[in-house]
């Protein structure tokens, strides 16, 4: 017996078996207790509730939803809202981040100071506080009748921001943006793929722009196809009675979250990109200057690409983290995935199933983001080991 205990292999197997048994016991007892509790409440488990009508309404939805639609459709709407908000937030945060990073690495003391002031202010305040602040600010704008306006084209009121748009169906707009994104992604993929590196540069550039143009053109065709009949092409918001009609309405819930993501996330992304700028070798920039590149080209062709390549892995983590921040929607009343799930739990009572759907949703979405961006990272990373000077 003692020899058996002293055998390393036996001990390893025993420890691992014990570990597995403990996990199994925890999981099985949780399932048993959960089932008992459900039976005590007379609730049925299962996913049949997904087809039931919800009886509540969403404040914001990209697809049409009403109280008679099913829980499944509401969850889908919430998921789309989360993806929509996440994309807007991440793009805006990148714009803010890049700008602030450029300010902080600029060769000018005043710009550095502005960048530092921005970062120290907004990075040190919780994002939920910032979202609540922007929400309070946007909802305390004047009522539609006294709304601020820009040349009567855009209105800023407590009911939301009204911008001019096109008279097209929502589906057409969605397809337009999808095609646009597909065009951009395809042309970027083509540019960074190693398979086409041997092609002459002129041909590569021609193909790149053709792919992009095809995406845009197909998108425009989709827009033309999805036009609402018997209406003017442009939909301009205007004040009629007590409310503003037409145009595209951006509700304060969506706008406040997007601003908070841009401001707070931007501060973090700025620091990451700044680190990237600093990591670009001095010799690279000097060589670019010596070759006679214009300052803009030194920035766009040498410093920026090298900086992004250096920090992309860190940036990916920031994007995933920022995407998770969309769950703050519940604090300001935006119908994001988490908010829809939590309302559904109180309405349908299927706590375990809905939490499972919630977790699975975020698991899948975040892993897709990480997977895609990691592929991009792999494609643009330096191959092999090399000395960086």
């Amino acid at each position, binding site marked *: 017996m003692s020899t058996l205990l002293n055998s390393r292999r036996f001990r390893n197997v025993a420890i691992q078996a014990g*570990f597995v048994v403990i996990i199994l016991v925890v999981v099985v007892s949780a399932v048993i207790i959960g089932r008992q509790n459900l039976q005590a409440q007379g609730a049925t488990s299962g996913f049949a509730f997904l087809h039931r009508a919800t009886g509540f309404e969403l404040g914001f939805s990209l697809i049409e939803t009403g109280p008679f639609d099913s829980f499944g459709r509401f969850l889908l709407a919430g998921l789309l809202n989360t993806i929509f908000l996440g994309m807007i937030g991440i793009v805006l945060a990148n714009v803010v981040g890049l700008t602030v990073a450029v300010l902080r690495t600029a060769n000018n003391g005043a710009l550095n100071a502005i960048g530092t002031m921005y970062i120290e202010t907004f990075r040190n305040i919780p994002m*939920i506080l910032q979202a609540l602040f922007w929400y309070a600010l946007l909802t305390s704008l004047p009522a539609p009748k006294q709304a601020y306006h820009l040349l009567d084209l855009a209105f800023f009121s407590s009911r939301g921001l009204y911008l001019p748009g096109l008279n097209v169906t929502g589906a057409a707009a969605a397809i337009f943006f999808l095609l646009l994104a597909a065009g951009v992604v395809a042309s970027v993929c083509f540019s960074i793929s190693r398979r086409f590196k041997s092609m002459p540069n002129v041909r590569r550039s021609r193909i790149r722009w053709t792919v992009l143009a095809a995406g845009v053109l197909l998108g425009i065709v989709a827009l033309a196809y999805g036009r609402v009949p018997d209406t003017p092409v442009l939909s301009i918001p205007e004040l009629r009675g007590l409310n503003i009609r037409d145009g595209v309405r951006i509700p304060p819930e969506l706008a406040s979250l997007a601003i908070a993501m841009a401001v707070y996330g931007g501060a973090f992304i700025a620091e990451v990109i700044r680190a990237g700028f600093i990591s670009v070798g001095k010799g690279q920039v000097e060589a670019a200057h010596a070759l006679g590149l214009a300052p803009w080209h030194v920035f766009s062709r040498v410093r920026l690409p090298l900086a992004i390549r250096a920090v992309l892995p860190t940036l990916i983590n920031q994007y995933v983290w920022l995407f998770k921040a*969309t769950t703050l929607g519940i604090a300001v009343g935006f119908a994001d995935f988490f908010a829809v799930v939590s309302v559904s739990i109180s309405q349908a009572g299927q706590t375990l199933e809905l939490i499972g759907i919630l977790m699975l949703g975020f698991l899948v979405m975040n892993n897709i983001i990480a997977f895609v961006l990691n592929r991009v990272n792999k494609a643009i990373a330096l191959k092999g080991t090399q000395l960086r000077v």
Partner: protein
Amino acid sequence: MTISATAASIRNARPRGSLGNRLRKRYFSTPVNTSISVVGLAIMAWVIWTAFEWAVLNAVWRSPDGTSQVCRGIDGACWAVINVRWRLILFGLFPFEEQWRSTIACIVIVVVAILSCVPVFWKPVRLAGLWVAGFALFYSFISGGIFDMPYVGPSEWGGLTLTVFFYAAGVLIGMPLAICLALMRRSELPVIAVTTGLFIDVVRSLPLVTILFTAALVLPFVLPSFLIGDKIWRVIIGFALFFAVYQAEIIRSGIQSLPKGQEEAAKALGLSYWQRTTRIILPQAFRRALPPTINQFVITFKETALIVIIGFFDVLASGKAAFGSGEWSFAWVEVYCFVAMIYFVFVFSLSRYGVYLEHRLRVGKL
């Protein structure tokens, strides 16, 4: 660490010389640079002046009759709302006569946190002793039930003390958990390493809100009744778990950055696994992982604000309540600024301390 180290080397590479010389180089080297400087400084001066005018010059500081009447039609900030409602913001729903206890409890935790920043306490035993003692003191003050102090249940805790309590408890429980997870993920036993890795990755890709929500609402469903406990403890455990998975990855990266020879040499000397881990690996790994650890502490403090969503009355929620009732409803800017200032003081001092530590680390004093 690498980021700020490079930043420092860049800073050192800047032209040295007289102050005038440096100013000229950084602000007025070329005409374009000069004009950018002038415009930039003007914008900054305008922003700072406007804020100063609003917050100090035109502000109303107190309300003689306790109503919002003094703030009608003023251009500046109405700090009178803070003057009237500060007890609500700082203490939440804590019973009025007992709020001195909440104050002492909060001070205890802050003092313990400051003490643990002093190098004298940087021994695992001293640090653990300090925190356990501080936490026991904190808990007996806030919860009461001894020495003639009436018992105050967790549902009445609130305000800044609740925020600090959440943070301290979360980090205190999360840290040992993080070490366990990091060691388990690096275990030589494949089943344990893979399972832990999977667990860490899954929890990391979930938003914190969903974990807090699960802890508050779902756990009572699947736990045996003697384990359910109070909602506040379940949420703290969830919070600690979320902190732990991130911290575990930080510790793991610290361990992996150690040269392999360290562990091999320890093995060759005949040290057991626990001796190797506690005497050789972890002390060095912690030193290497210090900058991201401080960073994680900073982020975690800001994340305590999320417990508002689960219905706790922390400093953010009590701030919302302070302007929520009709009379002061116009004063949301002032209240949010006040709460933001509180967070700013904590977070900023923590991150400055991190910068100081990194500096010490670079000159090899740690």
